[in-house]
């Protein structure tokens, strides 16, 4: 406050200040009256208060302060990436919020999740919880419920959380990649099998391009290659001879154009003769057929005659019987009839 006294001594020097500081100095600002000042100020205060209180209430609501919740404890061997306030999702919808992370006495991480009662029915006894950490983005806690008919998850349930970690596989991947690279290195080294194979391939292609070519490569030396070539030549000659033989056989079988000496024309003539023979046979058979028809008619007549003969014979027999009876009658009646009666003495 010493400075104030010092300043007060300084003040009269600048500006249009009045000469005597003891007199009432008019204020610098013009005190224009504000209509309904107190009401306006109170309204402004109330407005600010409402704004702050409303924001606070919205924040409390957003943080779930007014929602009845139940607790779920997830145990994990590693809580890396889990932060307080993060969501637990079910089918992509947030149904819980991590309230606290603590280290259990067994050395596991205990993730305490608040689940609002209205969403708790999604969690059942058989629900599975996973902790998934992506390469990009945050860690997610997800709940999966296969059987929605199962019993409800009780308050304070402790469940293990399964870890599906994309980054956890990176060391393994790196080890595999390193192994692969060392294999590649071994393959491509100066004295590696691949390099010697390539050298051999190069030698092979050189031999392929050289005299003897593929045959030389296949047979191993040039002499054998030449034998193959000679064999091919002889085969060609043989084929030419076979060709001539085939031509001759052809000529013998089919003959030249118009000649009758070949096999096929003779066969053809024989066939024509056979055709004529068959036609003659057919006419002979027709005649035999007619003879047989006539013989059949004769047979029929003979059968009829036989039938008539039977009747005739019966008639003759009856006539003979009549004649016999007549003769017997005459014999009996006739005086010249001999005494047939035996007279015993």
């Amino acid at each position: 406050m010493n400075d104030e006294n010092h300043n007060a001594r300084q003040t009269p020097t600048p500006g249009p200040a009045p000469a005597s500081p003891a007199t009432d100095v008019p204020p610098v600002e013009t005190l224009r009256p504000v209509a309904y000042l107190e009401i306006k100020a109170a309204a402004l205060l109330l407005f600010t208060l409402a704004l702050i209180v409303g924001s606070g209430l919205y924040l409390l609501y957003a943080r779930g302060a007014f929602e009845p919740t139940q607790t779920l404890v997830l145990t994990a061997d590693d809580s890396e990436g889990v932060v307080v306030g993060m969501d637990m999702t079910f089918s992509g919808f947030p149904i819980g919020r991590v309230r606290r992370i603590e280290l259990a006495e067994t050395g596991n991480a205990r993730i305490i999740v608040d689940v609002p009662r209205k969403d708790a029915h999604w969690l059942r006894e058989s629900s599975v919880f996973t902790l998934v950490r992506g390469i990009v983005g945050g860690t997610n806690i997800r709940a999966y419920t296969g059987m929605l008919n199962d019993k409800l998850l009780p308050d304070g349930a402790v469940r293990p959380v399964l870890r599906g970690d994309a980054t956890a596989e990176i060391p393994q991947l790196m080890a595999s990649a390193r192994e692969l690279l060392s294999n590649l290195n071994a393959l491509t080294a100066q004295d590696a099998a691949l390099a010697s194979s390539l050298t051999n391939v190069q030698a092979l292609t050189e031999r392929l391009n050289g005299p003897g070519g593929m045959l030389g490569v296949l047979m191993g030396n040039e002499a054998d290659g030449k034998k193959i070539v000679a064999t091919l030549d002889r085969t060609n000659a043989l084929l030419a001879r076979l060709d001539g033989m085939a031509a001759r056989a052809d000529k013998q079988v089919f003959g030249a154009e118009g000649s009758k000496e070949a096999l096929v024309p003779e066969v053809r003539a024989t066939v024509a003769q056979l055709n004529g023979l068959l036609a003659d046979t057919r006419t002979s058979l027709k005649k035999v057929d007619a003879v047989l028809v006539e013989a059949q008619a004769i047979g029929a007549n003979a059968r009829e005659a036989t039938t008539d003969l039977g009747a005739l014979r019966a008639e003759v027999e009856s006539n003979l019987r009549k004649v016999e009876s007549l003769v017997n009658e005459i014999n009996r009646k006739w005086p010249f009839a001999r005494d047939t009666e035996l007279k015993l003495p």
Partner: protein
Amino acid sequence: MISRLPGLSLPERVWNTARRWAVAWWRILYLGAVVLVLVLSPSSYGKGTRRALARHLYLDTAPVLLGFTVLAALISLVLTRIVVVTALSYGLSRYALEMVIRVLVLELIPLTAALFVAMRCTIPNGSQITRLRQTGRFDALRAHGSDPVRIELLPRVIAGVFACITLAALSCVVALVLAYLGVYGFNLAGLPSYTRMFGQVFTPSVTMVFALKTVFFSLAVALIPMAAGLYDTGDRTQPDSELGGLARMFAVLLMIEVASLMGNYY
């Protein structure tokens, strides 16, 4: 600064500068403590001062409220649009809204509100205090047995703090609403997920840092220009104490911002 002090050896000049610097900061701290005591004592809200307080409260806040809200809304719209479109092109749209809220509501708007109040209200009020002091109004008040700090300075400080907090609160609410509208459009479908995301951003520690930052911003903006106006530098070769006060105010704002960033992200 040091070169402006002729006829003094280098150690004396360094000593003078250091002393002035220390005195200026001490005055700010001292005035802050005095104002805090006065704010907390019920006798400061007597019948006579209440009217002056109401007048300053109203006149410092109401005229700038609408203009600043419109400005904040415009900034919010533009920034939301930029962030959302950029995030969409990188396939990170689910982080866009969170980023908008963090950047706008947590960082930009309180600072902008504080600077706006400083430019519009508290720096002119500091000049008024200087003029009042220079015209002998303080001496007159003292002669009447009144405390000039309580009569003239306290209402202006309280009004500055109040304006700062009101502007920040209103602009934050407007920015939140506009960010929601900018992302989801005019429907209520995204409100549950927006609320959830809001709750996730404003963890208790972040909320506390945000509230403390806003309060300290408003205190710095309201107090430092007043301190610069109330006290002279005591050095005839340094007439530009207002500019010094301004520089100190910016330094304090910067320090508060850095401290809040460290509190939030370290």
